[in-house]
């Protein structure tokens, strides 16, 4: 049965979101306001909005779930995600703000002097968008289950409708201010839950020892005789996890477009400081929750204490949720179950509100990216649609509804854990589009042909490798060529086929070296001048 305190806190959260959305809507006067908030967002708001948009349910639910599965070595993957934020400051953020485009595809079309690239970039980004909006709706479904105790399916439908209303009537101004509010909320939620778990075990030392007693190999690394899990059982695997998301902040469209919304370059740089400050605290909380989830659930979860679940420990509790409420990817529920075990409705309420916040802001961020790509780049600029030109906001809203509806259907039975969907989207986009973005800014020799070939080859190759590893070998982390090399399928661990990122960069460089260079004036304008005095 739903706890009234948990429901009440969630209701307060929604009132806050509606109030901010309503207030910011009064300020929206043009399509530019809708797409990029009129470039009037300051560093603190943009930094917080960056945090809540970039960090999705893949962070809030998925990272603790993977710490639960892989043990302590996965903390380093989380460290690398946070460290990737400052890396973006000078790598792409400042230059992209100096350039000041409207859409993610603008840079590719201008730098390589080829408008047709809008089609290619759009297709690849949309693949990532569908995965990300899906995982956000999965997150909504899980948190709504924790709040209202109704079947996961209802949560998915209700969650999709909430995001639809939120994005369709808001645009980027509403999402910027709301995302900032949501960032504060989710950071506080994770911190409170982590403090609650540490307190439960009588302090940090007690917490550490409780984990070791419950799971003696938890803190083992590949150098120890018995690693905690095969997927983090080799240093190659640990390094692979480290790099899956590391460069995402610099290259993923839903963060890159946030650099467009700020007032100036100085604000863009400073906003990343605020983002790193809050996101670091948030991740500290998630690391504590993820590591303590198993022992917390097995020590104090009400389902075990009341004798509803009698075998299987923490996994038994998660399976109970799968069979009772229809949660498709049960490990994703481990973080919520750990907080349920605290049996404190105030903390659970704030966590659920924070969870809804992170899911809504991420879905909204991605929907805005595809809105701009489809409405402005494809319909208006490429197809010269009169309807899109005259009704850009209406068309963007129609696009939002279509993407959310498709994602909702996939979310009912998702193809993997939320973090699986996230890693897949990251590696495919970074490998296919990252080289032409980063090297386009920093290397005069980057060419149009290399952009096309790298994007097409790496998109198709990674898609095939990931699906082959997942469906034939049993997990996306097994290197897809293991069988071809005559090795056991688990011999080489490459999470999400992360090898595709360095291969993509290498391919781009090699092709650039042997193909025709772009026009000098284009290179000067979109490479040399953008990166001067950063």
């Amino acid at each position, binding site marked *: 049965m739903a706890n009234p305190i948990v429901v009440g806190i969630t209701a307060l959260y929604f009132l806050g979101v509606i109030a901010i959305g309503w207030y910011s809507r009064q300020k929206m006067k043009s399509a530019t306001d809708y797409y990029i908030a009129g470039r009037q967002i300051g560093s603190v708001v943009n930094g917080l909005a960056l945090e809540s948009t970039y960090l999705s349910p893949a962070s809030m639910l998925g990272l603790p779930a993977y710490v639960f599965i892989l043990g302590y070595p996965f903390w380093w993957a*989380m460290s690398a995600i946070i460290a990737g934020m400052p890396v973006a400051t*000078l790598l792409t953020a*400042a230059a992209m703000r100096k350039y000041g485009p409207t859409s993610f595809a603008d840079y590719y079309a201008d730098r390589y002097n080829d408008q047709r690239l809008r089609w290619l970039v759009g297709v690849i980004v949309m693949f990532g968008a569908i995965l990300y909006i899906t995982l956000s709706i999965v997150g909504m479904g899980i948190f709504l289950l924790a709040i209202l105790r109704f079947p996961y399916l209802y949560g998915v439908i209700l969650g999709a409708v909430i995001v639809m209303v939120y994005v369709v009537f808001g645009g980027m101004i509403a999402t910027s201010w709301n995302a900032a509010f949501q960032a504060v909320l989710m950071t506080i939620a994770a911190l409170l839950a982590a403090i609650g778990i540490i307190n439960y075990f009588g302090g940090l030392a007690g917490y550490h020892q409780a984990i070791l007693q419950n799971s003696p190999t938890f803190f083992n*690394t*590949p150098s120890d005789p018995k690693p905690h899990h095969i997927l983090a059982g080799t240093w190659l695997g640990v390094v692979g996890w480290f790099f899956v998301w590391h460069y995402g902040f610099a290259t993923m469209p839903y963060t890159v477009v946030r650099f467009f919304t700020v007032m100036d370059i*100085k604000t863009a740089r400073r906003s990343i*400081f605020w983002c*790193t400050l809050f996101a*670091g605290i948030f991740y500290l909380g998630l690391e504590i929750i993820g590591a303590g989830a198993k022992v917390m659930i097995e020590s104090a979860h009400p389902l075990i204490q009341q004798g509803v679940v009698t075998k299987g420990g923490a996994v038994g509790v998660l399976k109970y949720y799968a069979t009772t409420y229809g949660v498709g990817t049960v490990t994703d529920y481990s973080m919520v179950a750990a907080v349920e075990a605290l049996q404190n409705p105030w903390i659970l309420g704030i966590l659920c509100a924070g969870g809804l916040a992170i899911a809504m802001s991420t879905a909204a961020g991605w929907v805005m990216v595809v809105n701009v790509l489809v409405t402005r780049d494809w319909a208006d600029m490429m197809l010269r649609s009169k309807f899109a030109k005259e009704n850009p906001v209406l068309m963007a809203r129609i696009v939002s509804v279509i993407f959310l509806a498709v994602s909702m259907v996939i979310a009912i039975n998702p193809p993997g854990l939320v973090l699986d969907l996230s890693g897949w989207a990251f590696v495919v986009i970074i490998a296919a589009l990252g080289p032409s973005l980063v090297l386009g800014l920093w*290397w005069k020799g980057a060419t149009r042909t290399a952009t096309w070939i790298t994007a097409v080859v790496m998109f198709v190759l990674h898609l095939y490798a990931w699906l082959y590893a997942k469906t034939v070998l049993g997990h996306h982390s097994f290197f897809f060529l293991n069988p071809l090399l005559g090795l056991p399928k688990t011999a080489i661990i490459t999470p999400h086929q992360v090898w595709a990122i360095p291969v993509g960069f290498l391919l781009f460089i090699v092709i650039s070296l042997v193909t025709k260079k772009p026009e000098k004036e284009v290179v000067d304008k979109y490479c040399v001048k953008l990166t001067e005095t950063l």
Partner: protein
Amino acid sequence: MPWPPKIFWAGLVLYYGFTAICWIGEATMGWNHILLGPEIYAALLGTWIVPLIMSVIYFYFPEKAEEAS
């Protein structure tokens, strides 16, 4: 040829150097088995403090250079 400013590389050396030292410490001296060791060097320092220092130097020094020019 455009090239990221020196401060960019300094930030990378700071973070990757810190990570490499921690991993070498774990592999050779078992730092991960020290009570609260991982919580301090991987969580507090690696996930928060070191990236935060990077983000400070990445806005502070470019701004200082802009003011000087």
